[in-house]
Each structure stands twice: as C-alpha cells, then as structure tokens.
C-alpha cells in the first residue's frame, strides 16, 4: 500500500458501529479487571510486603 493510500484510508474509513460482541469484550474486560484489582489490593493489604 502506498503512503497516500494509507492517509486516505484513515481519513475516509467508513464508520463501523460497535457490535454487541465488542461491547461485551470491553465490558467484561473492564469488569473482570476492576474486580481482580480489588482482590489484589485486598491481598496486598492483608499480606503486606515482607523484608
């Protein structure tokens, strides 16, 4: 692909609305991520770094 083609492609790319599967992916990722971080914070709190 030549360079001008790429610029044009990025500029004129047709809109692709978020599909339900993408929404699920984003939602589940964030949800699991936040839950896991909370769990890890609790572990961090109750099992602090030992020297």
């Amino acid at each position, binding site marked *: 692909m030549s360079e001008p083609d*790429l610029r044009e492609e*990025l*500029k004129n790319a047709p809109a*692709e609305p978020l599909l339900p*599967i*993408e929404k699920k992916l984003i939602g589940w990722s964030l949800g699991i991520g936040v839950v896991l971080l909370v769990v890890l914070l609790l572990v961090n709190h109750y099992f602090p*770094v030992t*020297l």
Partner: protein
Amino acid sequence: MSVATESARWPGTAQPEPRITEDWLSVWIGLAIFVLALGMLGGVDLLGWVVSTSVWIDPSLALGSVSRAYAQLGGAGALVVTYVALLAVLTAAAAALDLDVKRFAVAFTAVFALAYASWIIGSYAYVAAVTPAEQQKFGIGWSLKLTNEGGYVVALLAGLIIANFFPRLAEWLKEAIRPELYIKIAIVILGAFLAVTAAGRLTLATSLLLRGVAAIVEAYLIYWAVVYYIARKWFGFNREWAAPLASGISICGVSAAIAVGGAIRARPIVPVMVSSLVVIFAVVEVLILPFLAQTFLWQEPLVAGAWIGLAVKTDGAAVAGGGITESLILAKSAAEGIHYQPGWILGVTATVKIFIDIFIGIWAFVLGYIWTNHINPSPNKARVSEIWQRFPKFIIGFVLTFVGGLALALGTPTQISSKVPAAIGEANTFRVIFFILTFFSIGILSNFKKLWQEGVGKLAAVYLLSLFGFVIWVGLAISWLFFSGVKPPLAS
C-alpha cells in the same frame, strides 16, 4: 510472517522468514554469555576482557577491562577485544537470520562505534558526576548529574539526530539496527543479575514478584478495553486498526501490536504502522519519564520502577528506561544520604514488563478467537497452537538465568556462592553494552518526519490521548497502590 511475536520486528527491519528467529537467538547468545561468566566459579576468568567505562575527566582513564586479570589490555585494547567478540557473535547471528553478512558486519562496526562513543561521552564527569564529592574528585564545579547511565540518553539522542538529519546514514546502518535482538539478549543476561540481587533478600523479592500480577490485569483488562473504546468510539477507527492500536498502546508495544494484528488477520501494514508509532512515543517517554520519576518519586523508588514498566511501551525502552530511572534515583537518594542497593528498581521494571509479555500470546488468541468466529467469521480460525507460537521465547532465557543464578547464589557452598556476584557482574557488563546498542537503535528507527508523512496523525492522536491522558496516570496510581512504602534494601 506467520509467527508474530517470534518475529516481532521493528519497523524498517522487515526480512523474509529466517531459519531462526531473533527471539531464539537472543536466548542462545544470552545463555552463552551467562555460562561463560560462570567460568569464574571454577577459577577461569573467560569474560574479564570486556570493556567497562568509568566516569572520567581524563579520557585516558575512561576505559578499562572489567577484570583486573586483563588489565594489561588497557582501555583501548579491552574496547577492541569487546568489539571483535561482539562482531563475531552477532555476525554469526546475522548469518543465521539470513541477513547480508558483509553489510551487517560493516554496519555493526559503525553502530558499535557510534553507540559506544555516546556511552563514553555520557560518562564524562561534566555529564555524569552526581555528588559534590564526585565533582570535587574530578575538580569540576558543576555537572548535569545524569550519572554514567546518562550515556543511554546520549546514545538515544545520537540515534535520533542521525535518523532525522542524516537519513541516508540511518538507511546505511539499518542492517545492524536490531533493537529487539539487542534488548532480548540484555534481558536474558538481566535474569542472572536480578537473581543475584534477589538472593540477598528473597522474601522481599518474592513479595515484589507477586505484586507484578497487578500489571497484567491493568495492561490487558483495563488499558486495552479503554483504549479500544476510545479508538473505536471517539476516533472512529475500524476494528482492523483499533485492535492492534489498543494492543500497542496498552500491552507491550511492538510485540503486542504484531501478535494481535496477526491473530485478527489484519493486513501487515496495520501492525507495522502501529509499531512505528510505538517506537516514537517510547522515545519521547524515555526522554521524559525517568527525570519526572527522579524529581517526584525518588522517595518511592519501587513505585518509580513499576511506573516505568507500565507506562513505557516496548521491552527495550521500558527496561532500559528502568535502568536510567534507577540510576537517577540512586544518585538523588545518595545525595540525600540514602544509599540503596542497585538492581531493585530495575528489577521491578523488568518484572512488570516480563509479566505483561508472558500473556501476549494468550491475549492474541482470545482476540483472534473472537474475531475469526464472531466478528469476521472465516475458515482461517484462530488455533490454540498460536499461543505458543506467539510466546516471547526470550522469557525462557530470562527464567533460566534467573533460576540458575538464584540456585548458584543460594544453593552452593560459600566458596562458590561468594564468587557468583563477580561472575554475574562480568555478564552484566555485556548487558549494559546491549542496552547501549538498543538505545542507539531505537533512536535510528525514529524518523519523526517520515512517520508524519505516512499519515499517522490520527493514530498518533489516539496514542497521545490514551498515553498521556490515561495510561501514564492509571499506571502511576496502580504502582502507588501496590508498591508505595516498600523501599529497596540499603547498600551494605
């Protein structure tokens, strides 16, 4: 190229598929250096000739061999022997990679000369001296206080100047511009160095290792989802661009962009463009973040280490940036009368980065499965075997040297274990040289003008917004939550 992470190449270095990947080569070369260094345990100093640079005011005292056993070589002799050894090993590696060996050898000679000259300049007392005592020792009234690891920044700037003002020279050098190979070799060696550091405080090291898990959650589940949403919803990118872009920004730069690009069956141009962008932003970050960390986080050294690992994308820039950060913070702390053991800040940065790297293949498979089954159903479906194909193999080398170093430091009689730090210290001198080559190479690959002409403005906007508006600050918050209050051990 079918195996993305294995051949996670930097832009401008694309080649046909070779007999062996840079990833595996880095494992073998790193392990060879590690094994040769262990000769010292049997009383044979096999690597003591490697060149080492001290902070200098008199150029004749800048260089020397790392071991006194090879002092007769002198600084220049040690430099020449080091160059010849690296040339031989890396030219053989170039042959294995099916590169033009002659061109590689010539280009490597220039790359080594320019990169190591940058390192020597970075060790000039006016650049590197930190404490008033050091300034007094060298008879100077001021210095930039960059520490001798400021040489990394000099090497990066030298590469940037060549890339942006002497593009024909950059093109001529490109055969030897292999930042992925150089940094992976360095990381394999780093495993042994961190093992020796950790052996003294195993409980602390284990606690820090467990906290590295937070980095995985943050990079894959939080960063990726947010950046993907921003790219798709706010900037209107299609899925083919948004997934590699989100992976490059949130996970591990070049490797992740290429792995995910392959997994979702994107056209090759997509991850290549994203990778170019990742390199540019990594350069900007490495020039800024270590100094911010020194200014604002010097009292929380491990927070700084984790932050660099989470914020700077690409292994090379992150781990090497961790090295600069450690050096700057140790210097600042020393000026305040606190002398931390070296290795812990860099260790946290490397742990965070390697933990993130381990899951690239799995994440790429997850996205590949969703894409090839639900978004763009095709007969070419994602396969479980791709997880192994995309696994960054240099991590195996890192684990081997880490475990090997730890076993030798903790599981051998005192007369042997007492020699381990010196032996690994010699290997670590090679690690520093590979860091220098990495920084110089990253600079050479960063042609800002060329990238802008290729039309990446919109991609850069997503990167800019995500990185400076979200990734850096969330990374700082998470690093603070998990690492604040934990200090590296004091130097004895």
